[in-house]
């Protein structure tokens, strides 16, 4: 029994859906680790391989300012690599290469998110992987994909968002694009990476056949742009930003409204959406404004849409002095779609729903200690997901994996350590 099973304190007898599957994980930064995080949460044995040339650089991300810099000191890294095991293997040493080759023969999935062609140059292209293990599914995740004239282009999440159209589709019409305030396509590419692995496993079960999956991160963003891409082709319309308003369907109010500030900053906002006249009446009621309810400029959706600037101003006058959270509860009590623009501290310390659903389970990490982690956003009736342990220390599970899984003796492991092969 490995360390993850020993550490699992859930006491929940329901099965982990992917227990028994093994993933040889060469991913780093965010997109690839996001994919294997899902597989690990669902019970797969994800063995993350690092080496001197390829230490996951996110190990240095968001270090604690009051502590010395540490390769195991990043909560950012821990969140994306929890529930995985970690080994080191030096690919420039023959024994280190053999460790990886043995791991490949024991794996159902091999996944990496290096630049296109890099894994092949490291000696592990699709042909070599098939020689080692014809049953292994191989996933390559890169910015532009493994084929195509621009495959060697360099991307990070924001680069991919820019090229895909996702950045342009975010922001106010008269301002610059706002883009996304984080690497959204690292999440998205990771989600699709996990989906692709699972589809390929089901295909393998049915046909006995493994395959190579090529994911281009930019394409994972482009699939989310279908409406404007079709609109341009059939109506000749170029994409224009709409801020927080809604053109399709054409409804108003549909925006964020400034509320009273809080101890942190004067920067509190509530999202309000009105889809029916009943909701409009309820909104006016809750905001305590019979004048607005009877105002001819706002007495139908068409009228509100025609006078949307004035409408949004009139609503803001009423929300500006109110607590966004109290207003949200009051509007929801009247069935009006409304939500506070929550910060992470709101979600983690106050949000009653996330709390009731146990969305931030706690788990240990050998250096960071006990911390909460983001959950997997699903509950199963007859299975479970797990939050057992934060990210592995660099090489923290090398001895366990090599001796228990890959058939090395303790003496061999010591020898390889002495030779810096692992």
């Amino acid at each position, binding site marked *: 029994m490995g360390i993850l099973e020993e550490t699992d304190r859930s006491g929940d007898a329901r099965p982990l859906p992917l227990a028994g599957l093994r993933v040889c994980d060469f991913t780093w930064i965010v997109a690839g680790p996001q994919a294997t995080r899902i597989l690990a949460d*669902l019970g797969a044995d994800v063995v993350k391989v690092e080496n001197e040339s390829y230490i996951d650089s996110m190990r240095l991300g968001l270090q604690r300012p009051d502590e010395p810099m540490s390769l195991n000191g990043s909560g950012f890294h821990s969140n994306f690599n929890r529930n995985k095991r970690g080994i080191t293997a030096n690919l420039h040493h023959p024994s280190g290469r053999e460790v990886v080759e043995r791991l490949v023969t024991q794996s159902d999935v091999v996944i990496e998110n290096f630049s296109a062609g890099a894994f092949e140059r490291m000696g592990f292209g699709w042909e070599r992987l098939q020689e080692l293990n014809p049953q292994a599914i191989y996933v390559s995740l890169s910015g532009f994909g493994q084929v195509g004239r621009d495959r060697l282009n360099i991307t990070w999440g924001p680069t991919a968002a820019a090229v895909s159209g996702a950045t342009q589709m975010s922001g106010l019409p008269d301002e610059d694009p706002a883009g*996304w305030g984080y690497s959204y396509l690292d999440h998205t590419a990771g989600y699709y*990476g996990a989906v692709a692995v699972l589809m390929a496993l089901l295909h393998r079960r049915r046909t006995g056949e493994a395959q190579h999956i090529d994911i281009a991160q930019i394409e994972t963003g*482009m699939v989310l742009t279908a409406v404007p891409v079709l*609109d341009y*082709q059939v109506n000749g319309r170029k994409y224009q930003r709409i801020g927080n308003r809604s053109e399709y369907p054409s409804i108003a109010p549909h925006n964020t409204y400034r509320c009273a500030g809080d101890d942190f900053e004067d920067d509190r906002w509530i999202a309000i959406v009105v889809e029916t006249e009943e909701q409009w009446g309820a909104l006016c009621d809750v905001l305590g404004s019979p004048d607005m309810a009877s105002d001819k400029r706002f007495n139908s959706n068409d009228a509100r849409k025609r006078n949307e600037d004035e409408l949004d101003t009139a609503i803001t006058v009423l929300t500006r002095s109110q607590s966004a959270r109290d207003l949200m509860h009051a509007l929801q009590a009247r069935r009006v779609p409304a939500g506070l623009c929550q910060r992470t501290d709101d979600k983690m310390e106050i949000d009653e729903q996330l709390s009731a*659903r146990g969305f931030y389970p706690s788990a240990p990490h050998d250096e960071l200690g006990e911390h909460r982690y983001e959950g997997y956003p699903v509950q199963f009736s007859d299975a479970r997901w797990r939050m057992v342990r934060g990210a592995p220390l660099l090489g923290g599970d090398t001895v366990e994996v090599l001796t228990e899984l890959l058939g090395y003796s303790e003496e061999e492991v010591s020898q390889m350590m002495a030779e810096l092969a692992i």
Partner: protein
Amino acid sequence: MASQLNTESAGPIEGLRVIEVGDLAEVAGKLLADAGADVIRVEPRQGARSRHIGPYVNDRPDTNHSLRFASANTSKRSVTLDFEREESVSIWSALVARTEVVLDGTGSSTLDDAGIGADHFRTLQPGLIWCSITPFGLNGPWQDWASSDLVQLALGGPMMSTGYDDHSLPPIRSDGEHSIAMSNEYALTALLAALWLRDDNYEDGDHPIGQLIDVSIHEAVSATTEGSFPNWEFLGQRVIRQTGRHAAAERNSPWQYKCTDGDYILLMGGGIPRDAKIFEGLLRWMDEYDLAGDLHDPKYLEVLYTDPNRDVEIRNHVADTIGSFVQSLTAEEVYRRGQALHLPWGIVRRPEQNLDDPHWEDRDFFWRGELPGHEESVRYPGAPYRFSNSPVRMRRRPPLLGEHNHEVYIDELGMAIADLRQYSETEVI
């Protein structure tokens, strides 16, 4: 305009039988259908919600001509059924009886309350996988709260990380129904994992393990905010939103600039190259335009690439100089020449501009196919993954409303023609 099922090559989940109902699961349904599953979308007689949302072909509203519907319903079949009618129960039961997966996007417990939901069918069909996607999950104090995409991106956190340096401007919701995408992508991981578990067990000779999968959109969005979570949990810091770049605990210099052609360029991380060699290449390029400023001073190389403290003022000066340089060129030149220097810079494209990029042609990314209401074929954005041996592709164009009533109800469920006619006349189907 008959829809032909292309049976040239099998997809990775070829033949999986899926019923989709409601409006919150259509992206998951599409991804399954494009991958080879037989997805039957059960729509009310007036049609799914997205059929009533534009834009429309030629801007003329028509149930069958919504681009919103087309974007998320390729490869599916469509039948109609009015759940308000008592006669629908036996028809619905026959549909569920033939399926392996129910994708329940009704967003509520409506079906269960009527006795025709997961509880009922999971007793009858032990291996059935019922995947429910709801705004807040099937339990908890907010389970019945009213929702929308805007409300979800507010509550889940993406908006407070996205917007402008100027905080008199609001947090921004990115356009494109991303709360549906995030939750549907997570739903697929859960659903496919449940299928794996079901068959894993079945091979051992036991009963197949069925599953009720409870996907919360609020949780899926909440899990999709990258840096704001560890900033709070591990460092106790809140992040603040900034124009066109990552939210951060402290303000930093711009990443995005408007170029001479009016297009924008994204300089990842502010544009400073990751090593000295690339920096020198960038300086040579800047020299062509005599815009390198004082960056040839050796102190910059030293501070950027050897000084562990990386003096912030000097870095900002370098970033600003690079920013001024790129604003004097076209975005296309900055993008192409930057990439040639291995700089992770991207042109900020409008979605339709990708139709002209030959790289996507090399990858056959766009799928050419029919679009109801439009004479010529169009190009649909394709799949987010390329399988070497089991291609994912558009199997049929988006269905007309109830297009497959005859095929499904009569040919596959064995309903009598006279019964279908009567159900149709009495507005059950």
